């Protein structure tokens, strides 16, 4: 076949093929994910009830955020979520180390420890709200033994409610981190462990200098999923307290939903403004993740 008779499509097949393969996925993703992000930016500049005419208000929604006490509380709660959620990472590592043995039935133990992650957050939320029931809940009973009495129960008290929910969230998150570390521990180079042992490294020193550096990929993913998970928290709050008591457990994702879609009024513009703020907080982390992946990618090409 001479070059002249070769069809245009055939000559360009190395460009056309990936394009065709990408098209359906990209179309879906653009319509439902990429474009809506920009639409939300736009909507945040309007006052809109979702049905009628939208009125352009410029930056007024954002100005309102600055003085909105509920927004401030939500933002602070997000910080609490983020910081406390990170505890799931060392907790997961700890359990992984505890379970990284080969004794009879250990496989089943590992699976059962992982259990909380497979259950939906809705069920986790229900389970924990019964666990926290004032007077009759197991948690309250055990606290009673130590003479601790939380007025109104964990979830009924504005000072403890958020922490109660975060604890419920840390439970499945720890299970996730545990499985990441178990998989990572499995791939730890036995020769390096051997060498470390010969050098007299034991316990914490071995963990810190020999094991943890080899667990870096697992740690990285644990950070990614934990940070995203913390900022995405919605289900547990909605199920356990619905933002209460007195709005003390709201986070940005929940407050946004409340403003835009619940009985607190259909303020799509204001809700979108909250979402934009949350988006930029996330973007900071997403940018960091992508940058790390880009670095690895470049190294892999070399």
């Amino acid at each position, binding site marked *: 076949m001479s070059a002249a008779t070769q069809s245009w499509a055939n000559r360009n097949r190395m460009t056309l093929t990936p394009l065709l393969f990408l098209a359906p996925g990209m179309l879906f993703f653009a319509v439902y994910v990429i474009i809506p992000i920009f639409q939300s930016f736009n909507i945040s500049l309007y006052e809109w009830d979702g049905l009628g005419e939208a009125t352009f208000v410029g930056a007024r929604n954002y100005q309102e955020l600055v003085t909105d006490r509920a927004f401030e509380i939500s933002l602070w709660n997000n910080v609490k979520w983020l910081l406390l959620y990170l505890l799931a990472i060392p907790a997961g590592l700890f359990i992984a180390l505890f379970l990284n043995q080969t004794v009879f039935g250990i496989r089943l133990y590992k699976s059962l420890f992982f259990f909380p992650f497979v259950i939906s957050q809705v069920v986790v939320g229900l389970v924990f709200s019964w666990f926290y029931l004032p007077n009759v809940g197991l948690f309250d009973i055990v606290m009673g033994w130590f003479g601790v009495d939380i007025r109104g129960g964990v979830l009924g008290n504005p000072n403890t409610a958020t922490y109660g929910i975060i604890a419920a969230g840390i439970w499945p998150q720890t299970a996730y981190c545990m499985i990441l570390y178990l998989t990572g521990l499995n791939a730890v180079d036995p020769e390096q462990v051997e060498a470390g042992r010969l050098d007299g490294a034991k316990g914490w020193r071995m963990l810190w200098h020999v094991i943890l550096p080899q667990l870096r990929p697992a740690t990285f*993913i644990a950070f990614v999923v934990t940070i995203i998970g913390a900022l995405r928290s919605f289900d547990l709050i909605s199920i356990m307290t619905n933002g209460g008591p007195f709005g003390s457990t709201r986070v940005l994702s929940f407050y946004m939903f409340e403003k835009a879609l619940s009985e607190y009024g259909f303020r799509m513009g204001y809700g979108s403004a909250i979402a934009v703020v949350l988006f930029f907080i996330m973007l900071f982390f997403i940018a960091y993740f992508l940058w790390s992946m880009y670095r690895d990618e470049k190294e892999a090409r070399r």
Partner: protein
Amino acid sequence: MPLSWGGAEMFPTPIQKQSRGAQVTYQALLPVVLIMWLLPLLAVMLFSMRPLADFTNGNYWGVPSSFEFFTNYGKVFFESDMPRYLWNSLVITVPTVIGAVALSCMTGFALGIYRFKGNLLIFFMFIAGNFVPFQILMVPVRDLTVSAGLYDTKLGLVLFHIAFQTGFCTLFMRNFIRALPFELIEAARVEGVAEWRIFWYVVLPLMRPAIAALAVLIFTFIWNDYFWAVVLTQGPDAQPVTAGITSFNSQFVAQYHLMSAGSIVAALPPVAMFFMMQRHFIAGLTLGAVK
């Protein structure tokens, strides 16, 4: 990336190499720690087998006065909307899994095999999109679904889920394909095999483990989704079980035995999936990065 638990020279030191006392302590500690870890869940299981009388008498934690497993679960299945919600969940989850896996096999192939301008950019766009907060999509996606006449339908949820999960699935598939031996594809090209045939006959068969891993993982993600179910559906016609359970609970307010049984039923399918496909599930969770 087949996974075997345990290795030759392990950290921490294998318990077998430690004193007899340490071994016994460890074996005894395992079940105790497990029970403490699963305590909230065990409590709910116990709740779900009690008669209503136990709760009215304040017997929350003692020995059940009678064993009502069949009565309680029977009520959940025959006297509530629970079976409908479960069915909805299934009808939403399975097509989403098929759709997202199919789309990402193709995007993963395009991004993993071909070198072209913007390859990495498109790949990163998928990853970034997968991490954004749902709330930034909520208003426009809801609006789009309403104007397409798909609000409160299962199809409306399925379409969105497919689109959103494609981000994560592409990340996974592309990395998996990158790790395949590239010589296979080059050899096929030298033979003059058409590109789409390479996809179908060479790459796709090798992607089976990745497909299995993604399928179980997406099944769990979608089954457990609550936010989008609340945003895009409202009645028992389309609501999946995660959203339906709140109406179920208002039907049986304060009847902890039934609410517990309902929760357990709602949670069971992903649990069963996990136990059947454990190996694939774990391979998927590590995003293909930890081997």
